[in-house]
């Protein structure tokens, strides 16, 4: 499986089209929660295939299971039944240690609230996943600088999250998500906390990332972001109804 290009000599700028190879394959995915004594069916038998280099927006009303689906694809949650394979590897039943390692090396997360480490600078936040992956200091600092430049924050690398605007924080979060050259970038309402102008910049950045070879899945209520994706998946009541 080829890694997303993003940066370095492979970053040609030529648009990459989704390949035929399936990167994400979800089969009969169901996820139930217990809310008190009541069982809630957040996902009810979802089947989904996403190809490498695709840019998919999952849309639907609140509570329809979008974030749950994203969490299962990202291996931070386990399905009640069904399977999720990323690049052919079923991540649904991985033990915690393996699932953690898998996320570290293969999945990039972007959250609505950015969730940067407040005590670390922008540069250190981007370095964090690389440090965890055991990359040596010089190499990770160099790549973190490169990534911050890529998202337009080169001059702000020493700033802490509290010294950055919402849009800048989200850019740092995207750079952090790309640190270990993941197979897949997952974003949950990435423009949800941003104003329209800043949101548009982030949407543009996602477009650029996809063009540069990153496979992206976003969960969003933002119509503009959904429109910018190559493919939209509509959900309702825990099921995919379209896409």
């Amino acid at each position, binding site marked *: 499986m080829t890694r997303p290009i993003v940066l370095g000599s492979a970053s040609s700028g030529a648009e990459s089209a989704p390949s035929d190879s399936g990167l994400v394959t979800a089969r009969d995915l169901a996820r139930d929660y217990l809310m008190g004594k009541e069982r809630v069916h957040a996902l009810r038998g979802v089947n989904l295939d996403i190809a490498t280099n695709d840019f998919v927006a999952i849309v639907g009303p609140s509570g329809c299971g979008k974030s749950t689906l994203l969490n299962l694809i990202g291996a*931070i949650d386990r399905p009640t039944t069904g399977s999720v394979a990323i690049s052919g590897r079923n991540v649904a039943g991985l033990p915690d240690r393996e699932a953690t*390692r898998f996320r570290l090396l293969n999945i990039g997360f972007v*959250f609505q*609230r950015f969730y940067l480490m407040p*005590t670390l600078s922008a540069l250190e936040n981007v370095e964090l996943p690389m440090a*965890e992956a055991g990359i040596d200091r010089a190499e990770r600092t160099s790549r973190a600088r490169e990534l911050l430049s890529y998202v337009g924050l080169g001059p702000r690398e020493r700033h802490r999250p509290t010294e950055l605007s919402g849009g800048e924080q989200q850019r740092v979060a995207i750079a952090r998500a790309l640190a270990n050259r993941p197979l897949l970038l997952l974003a949950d309402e990435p423009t949800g906390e941003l104003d329209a102008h800043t949101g548009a910049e982030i949407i543009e950045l996602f477009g650029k990332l996809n063009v540069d070879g990153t496979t992206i899945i976003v969960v969003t209520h933002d119509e503009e972001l959904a429109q910018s994706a190559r493919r939209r998946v509509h959900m309702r009541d825990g099921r995919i109804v379209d896409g």
Partner: protein
Amino acid sequence: MRFALARAALVRHRPRTILATLGVAVAAAMLLDMVMMSTGMRESFRELLLSRGFQIRLAPKGTLPFDTDATIDSVSSVIAALRENPDLTTISPVLGASINVRVGNRAITSASLGVNPRVQGDYELLTGRDPLASNEIAVNEDFQRATRARFGDTIEVSIGYDPQTRSVTQTRKFVVTGRVRFLYGAANQPATAMQLATLQQMSGLARSDDASLFMIRVRDGANVESARAWIERRIPTVGVISIETAMAQVDERLSYFRQLALILGSVSLFVGFLLVTTLMTVSVNERIGEIAVMRAIGVARWHVVQQIVLEGIAISLAGAIAGLGLGLVTAKYLNAILSSFPGLPMAIDFFLFQPRAVWTALGLLAVSGMAAGVYPAWRAASLPVATTLRQEAIA
């Protein structure tokens, strides 16, 4: 990176970290003092006993030296018997008595030791010279302060004072020849030293050949316990105490101190542990979201725990180092108070500084700091990532 994160987390809430560190410092100071006290008095006593190289003491059977007024009869025959063993190189008989010195209308009471100044092991000469003649006396600073006696002064010394009849057994004049420090002297206790024969004569016929104590040096390389056993067999009428047997008796008498030190030390350690645990629990609860994100982006559970445990250890060690200074200051202050207890040799330190005590206290605190961080860290790092993130988002 884990060190950087741990450091950053501590710096982030600077006042709270400083207060917690101070709290641990107080607990550490008390722990250190208790560790110092649990072994200090014993080691100090041992050092004191060995300070002049006398390894064996003879006391009246069934007593400790100067524990009672009992004496050993017939000093000359005891010395003759001891001379039979070539391993016993120095024999120093000592007689203790209470003397009175008249200063104006007041009678000052003082302890006095009759010794052989050439082989004695009871005092060290600070200025002047030993009392080598029968009319000479060496005095300590407390005696000088109480009587205002100076070198070369002649003082009138009485013995056998009867407060009811206000009469004395014998009075003699002495010339003050030196100022000495008594190794086993209690605080604020006037004391003097004179020739053994002089004190024996002044004490009357009943004590004319008596000694309260014999101090004995054993030849280098000779077995002290064998020498002790030989004396016990040769002179069965006296109690023979080697350093080892003395320490066994000291251990028995100090067991209450050690128990007290153990209990107070354990309480201090537990208080320090609770303090760090509380701080780490609060700190971890504040960062549940951050921890969930770290887990989501692939930071291993064990590495999250390590980072939080590092914070606990850092607080404990910083507190321990601050507590080391505080503990030494309080130990010095408490030692000054306890050393002035009547009847106890002033040279005994209740709180003896030993590097081992410091390492023990530091080690215990580091382990407790580690233990304090493990539970909250493991709990936080084990929370389901997706659920925690959802709850954080709702919050």
